[in-house]
């Protein structure tokens, strides 16, 4: 790496970063010298990577995630690791073992989650772009709550190698930025085939955003404007869709009947996978020491009780239960059929429309501490999880405000049509700025 260097000493009043790198060297390339923040569940060689969990406190990965290698090859300066809900389990970034991140738009509110640190680092002007991860909305939700842009790519388009798994079959690393152009640029750096990720597709991203959406057919699912969605949010999003129509798009009402059980299917799938993924944190190979004088179950139980937060233990137990003898068929197996139904609903709609549009989140950013009941927090993911279940791309782009807080317009696309959702978001962004 060539010897350029930048200093990074931000005023991190929002607790966006868990680790900052004060002096960063970088090389030439498409992103040369651009400060990029990386969510703390993405492995960075030599830089502590904790997933905002005490159980990984002090863990220094001996290898880089594929996307981190690509960032470095592009000349980006990786300036720090951002705060998040522990292991990605949350919608507020309050579930961090190292304190919550605050929303730069209103510090009494959450930035959304789980990639809240990345969103706040951008919204707070500390970096131009950042990497987040999206398992059930974890890029789009904080993008919406903080008034920035975030893309959840098509499943398989960005390598997950080095991403500390929460729910492998649902999650993707994706770009976040102040503008659609920044998100598109970052996507161009991180997308592409990686032989170390068996779910990786050879679909590089070489697109430059185009604002022309004449003739575009936009599906408007009734479920995204119904019960549970704040009418003020619905109004703002509807008027944003109106702007798309002014740009030459036509809207088509549609319906996603499987939305009824999509959220349950999502939580069953992600907790099942998480219960297995997080079993390896036992204090033997990394993390805080297990007491080796005890027998293994006792030692592990102690380390894991002390190391995992309440929400993480709750999800591990839920997943363990849902996979346990006698319940697999009722929960996991059913959730996989539900997933297929969601995928088919989208496929059916996409045979008639080019993209689907709706709000990213049903409300504006919550007040800190507002979502104390786990189920009510889960329910706020209802509009983002269908995309993860189906593996399709979706972007959140700012589209106005309610009570002074930003609202996100969510554009969902066909598999591997990340370019198209970028274009629609870009067209909207160009129209309103």
């Amino acid at each position: 790496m060539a010897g350029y260097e930048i200093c990074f000493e931000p005023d991190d009043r929002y607790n966006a970063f868990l680790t900052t790198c004060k002096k960063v060297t970088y090389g030439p390339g498409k992103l040369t010298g651009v400060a990029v923040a990386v969510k703390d569940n993405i492995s960075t060689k030599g830089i502590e990577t904790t997933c905002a969990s005490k159980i990984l406190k002090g863990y220094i990965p001996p290898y880089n995630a594929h996307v981190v290698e690509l960032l470095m090859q592009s000349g980006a300066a990786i300036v720090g690791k951002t705060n998040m809900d522990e292991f990605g389990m949350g919608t507020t970034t309050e579930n961090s073992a190292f304190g919550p991140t605050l929303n730069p738009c209103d510090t009494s509110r959450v930035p959304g989650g789980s990639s809240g640190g990345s969103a706040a680092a951008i919204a707070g002007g500390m970096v131009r772009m950042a990497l987040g991860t999206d398992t059930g909305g974890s890029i789009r939700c904080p993008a919406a709550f903080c008034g920035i842009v975030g893309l959840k790519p098509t499943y398989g388009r960005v390598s997950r190698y080095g991403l500390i798994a929460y729910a492998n079959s649902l999650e993707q690393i994706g770009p976040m930025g102040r503008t659609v152009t920044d998100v598109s640029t970052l996507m161009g750096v991180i997308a592409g085939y990686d032989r170390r990720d068996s779910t990786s597709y050879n679909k590089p991203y070489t697109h430059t955003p185009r604002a022309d959406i004449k003739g575009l057919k936009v599906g408007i699912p009734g479920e995204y404007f119904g019960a549970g969605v704040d009418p003020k949010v619905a109004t703002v999003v509807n008027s944003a869709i109106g702007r798309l129509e002014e740009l030459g798009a036509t809207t088509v009402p549609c319906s996603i009947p499987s939305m009824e059980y999509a959220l349950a299917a999502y939580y069953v799938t992600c907790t099942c996978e998480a219960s297995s993924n997080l079993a390896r944190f036992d204090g033997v190979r990394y993390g805080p020491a297990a007491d080796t004088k005890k027998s293994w179950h006792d030692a592990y139980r102690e380390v894991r009780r002390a190391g995992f937060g309440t929400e993480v233990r709750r999800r591990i137990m839920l997943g363990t239960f849902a996979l346990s003898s006698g319940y697999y068929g009722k929960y996991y197996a059913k959730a996989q059929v539900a997933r297929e139904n969601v995928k088919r609903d989208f496929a059916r709609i996409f045979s008639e429309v080019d993209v689907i549009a709706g709000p990213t989140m049903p409300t504006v950013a919550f007040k800190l501490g507002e979502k104390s009941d786990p189920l009510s927090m889960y329910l706020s993911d209802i509009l983002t999880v269908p995309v993860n279940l189906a593996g399709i791309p979706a972007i959140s782009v700012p589209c106005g405000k309610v009570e002074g807080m930003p609202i996100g317009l969510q554009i969902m696309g066909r598999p591997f049509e990340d370019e198209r959702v970028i274009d629609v978001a870009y067209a909207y962004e160009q129209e309103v700025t």
Partner: protein
Amino acid sequence: MTENQVIIGLEVHCQLDTKSKLFCGCSTDYRSDGPNTHVCPVCLGLPGAMPVLNKRSIEYAMRVAKALNCTVLHESEFSRKNYFYPDLDKAYQITQYDKPLAEGGYIEIEGDEGGEKRIRLTRIHVEEDPGRLVHMGNTERGKYSLVDYNRAGIPLIEIVSEPDMRSPKEARKFLNKLRATLEYLSVFDSEKEGSLRVDANISIRGSERVEVKNISSYKGVEKALTFEITRQKSLIRRGQKVDRETRHFLEASGSTQSSRSKEQEHDYRYFPEPDLRPLHVQSWVDGIVLPELPDARRERFIVQYGCSLNHARTLTGELRLANFYEKVVAPDPKGLSALAATWIADTLIGELNYRDMTIDAVDAAGVTELMNLLRQDTITDKSGIDVLRVMLDQRLNPQPCETPAAIVVRLNLAKTAGDTGFLTAAVEEAISQHPTALEDYRNGKSGAINFLMGQVMKKTRGKADPGELNRILTEALKNREV
């Protein structure tokens, strides 16, 4: 149904002899290296690492499936088997569960009741080996475990049989046949320590089934099964119940021990491994060209070399042994095949076992030369054994090895053919030194001749031709009858 009938089924785990591990590029050649030196983010279970399936491991497993007459399934997939144990880096083992690579098939063995017997197979699947605990710790010493993850991720094939075996002997034959087949397929190296592990299901008809785990040697299987059968039969004889349970085999004592009840509560919570894609490889089966397998080679040895069925079975029962035999007889198949079959099957194997040597350590050219010396009548059979022993002992030591001919010369083992003067002298000496033997002979005790022959043999250190000696001795004794 026969009362007290023994019912045995085996689950055999064999390490596939690939160059790299099942899900990462770490070398499988770890045995001579230090702990934790063949480990990467994937096989150490570091957060964020992802498995990528080794193609050769699937090709090897499919070769086995085809050779054992199994059906490769249209779709198979990998699942996670979740449990905690310090040697299991990810706290789950990637294995195959409800969609194994192949199902069905059989292995033919020589059954206890004579004739070929088919042992049916349930399934074949591929999975990863866990790491290795080198120091288990125990309560008395309040110690800890030490883990080496070099073995973690080595590809294993698991072959599950139906409960078709009726004795430990049949189980041994099943294992031998399986091992031979895997070696003939060049997918397995039985010489590598710990490359085979067996779990056995065993019951006495009408009673509960017991699973014996942790059997890690061929000899251990027969021992463990024999122990279990005795244990179960004696329980039944005393009117007690056999518990359905898992027991561990203790290699040192040759016994089995009940596992703690806690371990029996396993709920493995299998689900498909989301980081791997399914396999659709059924169409590869037709393209697999199998080499000559043990049964075919056995038949060929009988036809081509005139081996007896038993010799052919022994010689082809191990790939290395079969190759060795063919190498020994290659220079002169017609002249050497019968002699070499006898010598290798009946003598050499025993001598190797006695020294805990493998056939790899033996020089085939040397054995060919030895066979020629025997065939040309240069040395007696007894001298032949001596020469063979010297050859093997020299292989065990760092000293330079001699050729058989050199050994014959050095030890003066060449037959005394034609040198009747020497023999006559030795006979005369023996008779005069043992007047009682002569007396016995005169009194018609036939053992006297054997005694005197032994004395002469001793004097001549075995190089006397027994036929020649017998002729001279009989003559000499006759001359003294009057």
